[in-house]
């Protein structure tokens, strides 16, 4: 079955849909976690520590966290690989462009590929900035995420990168969530409006929720 799925364009779209939904689920949890920054360094840092102790004593320290990280890496890799292969196929299928050009499809639909690339680059920067601290501005403090977040959003480029990425994320989810539903065969004429509404609501909620943090730092609400 795995072979049939991976060899088919419809199958690869299924891989994209499922991996996309896994990442989406993670983002909802991540966004809710981020909002704890508005309740002060104590609560935020405690939450960050709790993430490492989830599942104890059954799980050892950081086991759950690493399990989630592995699942996410697999999802990102599956999503990106199928996107790359499907895009290659799409471009090959339409080598000659029309002379008479027309603006086609919605903005969210047209920006899926570039938006995806922006998000991939953002993820790399984001991990190097706030997980490993490699490219962090100022001194990165292990175990003090509150201060690290404030540091990042105190630089103009930190804000710019983050805001651009979150807007790309919103657009990506707007078309991606609805598309995933169609790929998995759960869409229908009657459900179409509901699915589009949920896609837009998720896109708006996640973008707004994530953007609240840099806006909070910029306005001095979080310092």
């Amino acid at each position, binding site marked *: 079955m795995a072979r049939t799925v991976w060899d088919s364009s419809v199958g*690869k779209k299924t891989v994209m849909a499922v991996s996309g939904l896994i990442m989406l689920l993670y983002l909802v949890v991540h966004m809710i976690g981020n909002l704890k920054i508005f309740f002060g360094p104590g609560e935020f840092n405690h939450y960050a520590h709790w993430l490492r102790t989830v599942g104890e004593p059954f799980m050892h320290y950081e086991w759950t966290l690493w399990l989630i990280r592995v699942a996410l890496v697999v999802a990102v890799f599956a999503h990106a690989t199928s996107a790359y292969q499907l895009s290659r196929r799409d471009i090959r299928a339409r080598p000659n462009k029309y002379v008479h050009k027309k603006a086609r499809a919605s903005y969210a639909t047209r920006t899926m590929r570039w938006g995806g690339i922006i998000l991939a680059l953002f993820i790399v920067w984001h991990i190097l900035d706030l997980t490993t601290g490699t490219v962090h501005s100022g001194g990165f403090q292990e175990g003090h995420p509150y201060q690290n977040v404030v540091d990042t959003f105190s630089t103009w480029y930190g804000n710019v990168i983050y805001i651009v990425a979150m807007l790309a994320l919103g657009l990506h989810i707007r078309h991606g969530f609805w598309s995933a539903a169609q790929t998995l*065969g759960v869409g229908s004429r009657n459900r179409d409006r509901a699915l589009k509404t949920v896609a837009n609501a998720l896109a708006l909620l996640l973008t707004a929720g994530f953007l609240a943090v840099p806006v909070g730092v910029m306005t001095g609400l979080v310092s």
Partner: protein
Amino acid sequence: MKLTLRVWRQRAADADGAMSTYEVDGISADMSFLEMLDTLNEELILKGEDPVAFDHDCREGICGACSLVINGDAHGPERTTTCQLHMRSFADGDTIDVEPWRASAFPVVKDLVVDRSAFDRIIQAGGYVTAPTGAAPEAHATAVPKPDADFAFEHAECIGCGACVAACPNGAAMLFTSAKVNHLNVLPQGAPERETRVLDMVAQMDEEGFGGCTLAGECATACPKGIPLVSITGMNKEWLRATRKASRR
């Protein structure tokens, strides 16, 4: 009406093509788009030039032979086939761009004529019902619920013109294939081959070099027969069901 036409001219499949400009005069608003091209071709023949090659057959909007991307739209500005598009949809003095379907699976044969036999091969892969031939069976021998019959008929309307492929930014044949799959898979007559049909037709579609679906929705907008975008969702569902069933065997 007096019009300026910019038409894709290409001598042969392996030759380079380009847009050529022609002026046509005395066009009636009641002419169909193909009759307008006939007028142009008569003039070209009288001048001893090579007429513009284009596909056409029934000229009633039911055979799927005509094609043409007119001003960037498959079958032009109205939601119908090119043969049923009338010149009243244009204004006197307009410049109209006429191009062939563009997809690597639909290579240009000459000028505006493309080879659509890739569609035939998709049909050969599973777009049929294996039934004993002979005298027509009694109409009520196999009961079909009314909603299923309507659903099948809606998809059976597909004339296989290829406008969906021409309009798709990825040159995908998902709408065409899904129309055929949905049409037969919902009916009791199509049930014995329900799984193999969708698996084989999708595999053939990939084999022909069509692109994949990114749900841009251009296909359903261009379709002269109004096959809905949700058709593709239905085919995806059938494909996943068939894949799961096949793995259990």
